[in-house]
């Protein structure tokens, strides 16, 4: 893979995302994976990204863009992918560039309300790329908890009280859910590591069927962190094993793309974010240890999966 500069700026500036927004940062990096002879139709679910980039009568998008509803990004992408295929077959597609379909949705639009549409699209095998930018809550409507909100994080619907210090449940395993559909490509990524992220989008675009990327998305407003810390936090998520970077091919082969043999203490990640401020209190030590154990257990399980499946050969489209 070569990134030839300068890249077209497919997401125009002037959008209304907060200072230091992880979502627009992710989108810029994602779209850098498109080659000059390619373009994409972008479909978004409702959420911050859609709202801040399409305040009527303006748009930030320099690619064809569709927004329908909160729950149906994957269903809309399925229809567009099919329509493009039919137009091409009938010789009615004027566009000379190779057209991809990229659906982008938040964690609410993916883990919760859009999960059914997503599962259907993955099962039907549409050739499209689904990107979930995971800021771990419903940010656009005021920081409500979602199935992606981590253990003990503060949100407006998981307040920190005397009895319950933040969200009592752990995060869903989205990559695992997608991989259970045995689609060609599933990966996690972080905007703190742009080369790894762009390479994974490239693989997702090359894959012969559905591909899903689950991308951790620091959000200064909802995570209560300084806007300048977005990239640092996106890196610490990986370095503490809170958000390991890996790939799953055809639901079978596991690859850790950024091994973390010596993780940093999870507190290094938590302490930069106001939503975890209560975890810095001495009486919360047990809760931090519980979270740290959970992320390390998951990482060790990933290592075992990668080791156990290392003999499965890589498909040709994987090499970018």
């Amino acid at each position: 893979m070569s990134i030839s500069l300068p890249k077209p700026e497919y997401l125009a500036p002037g959008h209304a995302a907060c200072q230091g927004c992880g979502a627009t940062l992710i989108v810029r990096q994602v779209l850098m994976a498109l080659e000059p002879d390619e373009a994409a139709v972008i479909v978004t679910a409702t959420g911050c990204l859609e709202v801040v980039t399409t305040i009527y009568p303006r748009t930030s998008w320099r690619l064809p863009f569709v927004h329908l509803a909160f729950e149906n990004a994957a269903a809309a992408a399925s229809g567009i992918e099919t329509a493009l295929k039919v137009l091409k077959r009938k010789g009615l597609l004027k566009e000379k560039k190779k057209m991809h379909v990229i659906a982008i949705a938040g964690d609410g639009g993916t883990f919760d309300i859009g999960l059914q549409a997503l599962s259907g699209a993955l099962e039907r095998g549409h050739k499209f790329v689904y990107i979930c930018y995971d800021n771990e809550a419903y940010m656009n409507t005021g920081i409500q908890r979602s199935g992606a909100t981590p253990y003990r994080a503060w949100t407006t619907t998981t307040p920190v009280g005397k009895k319950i210090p933040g969200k009592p449940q752990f995060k869903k395993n989205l990559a695992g859910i997608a991989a259970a559909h045995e689609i060609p490509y599933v990966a996690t990524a972080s905007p703190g590591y742009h080369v790894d992220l762009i390479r994974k989008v490239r693989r997702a675009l090359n894959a012969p069927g559905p591909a899903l990327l689950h991308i951790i998305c620091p959000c200064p407003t909802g995570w209560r962190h300084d806007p300048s810390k977005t990239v640092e936090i996106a890196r610490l998520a990986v370095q503490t094993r809170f958000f390991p970077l890996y790939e799953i091919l055809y639901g079978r082969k596991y690859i850790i793309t950024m091994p973390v043999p010596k993780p940093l203490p999870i507190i290094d990640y938590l302490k930069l974010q106001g939503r975890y401020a209560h975890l810095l209190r001495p009486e919360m030590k047990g809760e931090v240890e519980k979270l740290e154990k959970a992320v390390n257990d998951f990482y060790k399980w990933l290592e075992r999966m990668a080791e156990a499946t290392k003999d499965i050969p890589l498909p040709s489209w994987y090499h970018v």
Partner: protein
Amino acid sequence: MSKLLGWRKIPIGTIILEAGSTFEVRTGDWRTFKPVIDHNKCTRCGLCYYYCPDGSITLEVKDGKIVKVDIDYYHCKGCAICEGICPVKAITMVEEVK
């Protein structure tokens, strides 16, 4: 896009025909600190360009090589991510006073 359309003229389905039209919105107004590049220190590695959420770092490229890196102050929101990302500390945030 200089004038808002009346309701009779709004395209059906709220289609927006002008791509990238937020470009005219001056988000540079949001800033209190602005990033300033020391061009003597800058190695033109391009790293800051990949990490700006607002596409406000512009590269001048000649024969595949970056020859100049600049900030688009019309759009830059002053988040200071670029200051933190620069490996040679060529970017400093400076308070803007009028």
